[in-house]
């Protein structure tokens, strides 16, 4: 995987022209991770000697491998030292790069812009609104690349425009939430199925597979796949390979479209209905239900329960920086549900009034951990401390075989600038002028992992289960799909 760490910013917000940043491309072997931590420009990247880079990468790879291999053997402190070395290396690299950036500063900015336009592999529309800025490193974090959807490895000609649009929507967080993202992906694939013309001497399904691979690679670079998307995609590919080869292209198209429709209906929409029914049985009049953030499934559940005439109230807990809960609040209020709204700091204050905690999930991992938006683990923790039942609502298509025990093995890092903008303050944050200080990191993790012992039950379309039943469900599902 080619990973470049960076973050986006609207170009007009970039304060200094010297820091006007271009995308940086580093050729590296798949699976190699590179955390880059400094502000670079294309010039800078070009000037950076290949040798240096290689060395840096090698060190990092080494460190990483060591980390992975020796993880069990190493004590925590030792681990830390390793990481520190790694950081040190990154720091040095950064200093070097900054020197080069200094040089780059002296050159005219127009030149740089020209360079961008000349480079043929870039998607210029995207380029206009977005530039890359490298984020400062954060200690001991395995970092997934984020938001680098300008890719040199993918030729835009190979990508269906629907996917390009989708990619931008993912990266700009226009489409948010694992359900919405999955549905959007499936819709895009349907589009692709319709539009794809098999070139001569190609078999439709094979060709489809290769094109799809290209598209998904591109999407991966825009934003890593959600588990729901991976699962849906895997299912589709399975159907693709099992397709009867004797059929005509049009028949194949129709079948594939059916496959997707079926998936949407059975695995997603029916699942919602089933979960709604199951949760509805658990909501009683005078309940106070605490929810966190915004979740399409929870919204359906609450609206359904409200329609069935139960009188209950909802506490919406919200957290910065996305403040999705406000959207949820607006929807619930317009449905005339009695709501209380707090930020996550007041959690312990409102938890006593709550009778149940309902949570949505991004994915359920095989070890029973719940991966969800950052803050969920905290809600579950406080709920447990106050002896309130924590119910996680999750469709089984979000179950995954991956295993994760803490929030750092796999995560995404969001734009740190949004942490600095506060809409409820009349003054700007004192951190804004220090944004570029190397001593200051602003970390905006997107997900966290809730350990299974904090979750009372998971409500799926199949049954209400303990977290630990995830592998069982996975096994059954796998059998069914065979």
């Amino acid at each position, binding site marked *: 995987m080619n990973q470049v760490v960076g973050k986006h910013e609207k170009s007009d917000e970039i304060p200094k022209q010297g820091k006007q940043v271009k995308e940086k491309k580093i050729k590296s072997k798949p699976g190699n991770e590179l955390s880059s931590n400094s502000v670079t420009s294309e010039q800078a990247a070009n000037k950076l000697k290949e040798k240096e880079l290689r060395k840096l990468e090698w060190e990092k790879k080494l460190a990483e491998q060591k980390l992975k291999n020796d993880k069990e053997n190493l004590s925590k402190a030792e681990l830390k030292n390793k990481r520190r070395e790694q950081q040190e290396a990154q720091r040095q690299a950064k200093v070097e790069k900054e020197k080069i950036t200094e040089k780059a500063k002296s050159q005219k900015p127009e030149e740089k812009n020209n360079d961008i336009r000349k480079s043929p592999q870039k998607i210029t529309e995207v380029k206009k609104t977005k530039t890359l800025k490298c984020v400062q490193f954060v200690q001991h974090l395995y970092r997934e690349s984020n938001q680098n959807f300008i890719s040199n490895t993918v030729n835009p000609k190979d990508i269906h425009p629907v996917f390009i649009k989708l990619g931008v929507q993912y990266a700009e967080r226009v489409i948010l939430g694992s359900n919405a993202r999955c549905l959007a992906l499936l819709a895009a694939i349907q589009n692709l199925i319709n539009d794809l013309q098999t070139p001569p001497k190609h078999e439709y399904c094979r060709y489809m597979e290769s094109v799809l691979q290209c598209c998904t690679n591109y999407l991966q670079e825009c934003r890593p796949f959600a588990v729901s998307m991976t699962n849906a995609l895997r299912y589709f590919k399975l159907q693709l390979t099992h397709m009867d080869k004797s059929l005509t292209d049009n028949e194949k198209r129709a079948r594939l479209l059916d496959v997707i429709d079926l998936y949407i209906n059975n695995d997603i929409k029916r699942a919602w209905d089933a979960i709604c029914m199951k949760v509805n049985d658990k909501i009683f009049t005078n309940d106070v239900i605490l929810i966190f953030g915004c979740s399409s499934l929870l919204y359906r559940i609450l609206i359904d329960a409200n329609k069935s005439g139960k009188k209950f109230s909802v506490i919406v807990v919200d957290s910065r920086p996305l403040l999705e809960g406000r959207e949820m609040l607006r929807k619930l209020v317009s449905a005339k549900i009695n709501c209380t709204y707090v930020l996550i700091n007041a959690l312990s204050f409102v938890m006593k009034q709550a009778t149940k905690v309902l949570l949505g999930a991004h994915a359920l991992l095989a070890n029973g951990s719940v991966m969800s938006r950052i803050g969920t683990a905290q809600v579950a923790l406080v709920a447990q401390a106050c002896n309130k039942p924590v119910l996680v609502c999750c469709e089984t298509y979000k179950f995954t075989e991956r295993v994760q025990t803490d929030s750092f093995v796999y995560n995404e890092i969001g734009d740190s600038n949004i942490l600095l903008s506060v809409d*409820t*303050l*009349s003054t700007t944050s004192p951190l804004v002028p220090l944004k570029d200080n190397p001593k200051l990191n602003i970390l905006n993790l997107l997900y966290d992992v809730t350990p299974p012992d904090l979750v009372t039950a998971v409500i799926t379309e199949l049954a209400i289960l303990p977290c630990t039943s995830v592998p069982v469900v996975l096994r059954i599902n796998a059998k069914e799909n065979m």
Partner: protein
Amino acid sequence: MSKSRNTVAKDNATQAIVIADTFEDEFVPISNDVPLCLFRVVNRPLIDYTLEFLSLGGIEETFLFCCNHVAAVKAHIKKSIDEAVGWTLTMKVHIIVSESCWSFGDCLRDLDAKGLLRGDFVLLEPGVISNIQLLPLLKKHSEVFQLDKGAAMTLIYQESSIGHMALCPQDETIIAYNSKNRVLFHKKTQKTKEKRVTFPLEIFIENSSVSVRHNLKDTHIAICSPAVLPLFSDNFDFQTKDDFVKGLLINEDILGSTIYCQILKGSNYGSAISNWRMYQAVSLELNNKWVYPIVPTVKRNRTLPENSALMLQLEKIVIGPNCIIKKGAKVTAGSILGKGVVINEDILITNVLIQSTKSDDILAQPIDKIGEFAYRLRACEDEEDLDLDKLLANKLSRLHIGDDLYEYDGDSDDEFSDSSEELSHTYSPPPDDTKLFFTEVVDSLTRGYEDKLLCDNLILEVNSSRYAYNITLKEVNYNVIKAILTLSQNLPNGTQYFPQLSQLLSYFSPILKNYIKNEAAMADCLQAIEDIAISNTELKDKWVIFLLKYLYEKDFLSEEAILKWFSNVKQDSKLYNQVEPFANWLQEAEEEDSSDDESE
């Protein structure tokens, strides 16, 4: 005592003016007994909030301008000083009394004459509650003043949005300002019934960037340069702050003054209790801590009887001192009980605001009577629920106000006009100039009708005559109506008479609208009609009834006013016979109405 010792008046002390009285009759009849500034808002006098706000905001000297109930206000302030309430330490309060002032503008003219203000100052309209820091705003104003010597006033707005309870429809404003926050355009949208707003093109041509906003709540706080007071003195037709803003914007070149604005964000809050709706909204917002750190006083460690149903939701309820809640009564979350409220047995109170009033009105419906002196004042919850608003208005009106329906009726029937000439109609010595004034008005109107002049200009003329002869509002109303009616008598008799009369009346309708604004003005108008009808026997029989019908249909007169007036007309007079059928018809219509639908 402690005051004199602790506060040393400084020459450069920051100063504020608080106008204590509203000169409109929103709060009549309660305000007949209690001045607005002593209204209890969540069990504390309104003025306490205002003064605490000023003191915390950094003001060192405040002039409290009082016109009515001066003794009560003085006593209250003295009491506060004696008790050494928080603000007394850092702020000096002077009470300025002037019973001759009948408008906001008059107060400022009076202050100008007294010459008490030294520099930039803060000007508060009646009923302000806020928590903003004033010093930074004053500083900003003086910075603006450095760049633009004409800067007269900085208006303070708070970011809000339409549909918010505290954004009262009468205060809905559209303003346009440039990148330097200079106000280019200012219009109160609810005062006109127009559906569209016309912006002058120049403001877009002359400025590189213009912000147009409609989501602002007027905090009724303004930062003023010393030039503001002389401006009021020079332009005697400035009666309110809105007049001032409007006047300055129109005559920017002549007056050479400009207006700026500041928009509050974050936890800065500002509102003014200018009518019952705002009273309610501000009460709830105070209770919900929007004005933090200014909060209603809370007694901690209250003792409650065991098994009290209140226990559960105590944090959401405000109960004033000496409240009696009888057995079986239930008070649920979100309710505010005023001082001394008595709640009778088995009454359910949900989400309402209850204040005890002195006027034990016989009109009150038994349903709304919760206890002795306590009536229901429902909290309006949603903006969709306009009915509730009307309900509230109706209930209130039945309680104390007669009919002030339009105050709550944001969307229709709004009879306020821009230049609010309204003054309190209390008393005035009968001046000799009244006759002169009358003839002058007749002259103006005749000329205006012949030359088809704009009614707005005529209003200006009338107003200037009024000031020239020092005529009270009551007489102005009376005489203007009388003048119009006199004109009507000059119309040619015959079959064309009534069409021509209605043409005349519709021509003068802006003037009628300007002067017939409230109950009292209606009474004056009817008096004028009566006088003309009696003194002039030549008039056609149908004249009176036509006139009344016309005025009623055009909403100048309310049926209550007509009926009230009619009840005082002598039974055996000719006039009585003329009007009787119309009155009967009204009576029936009203009965049908009220039996039909409570909320009208």
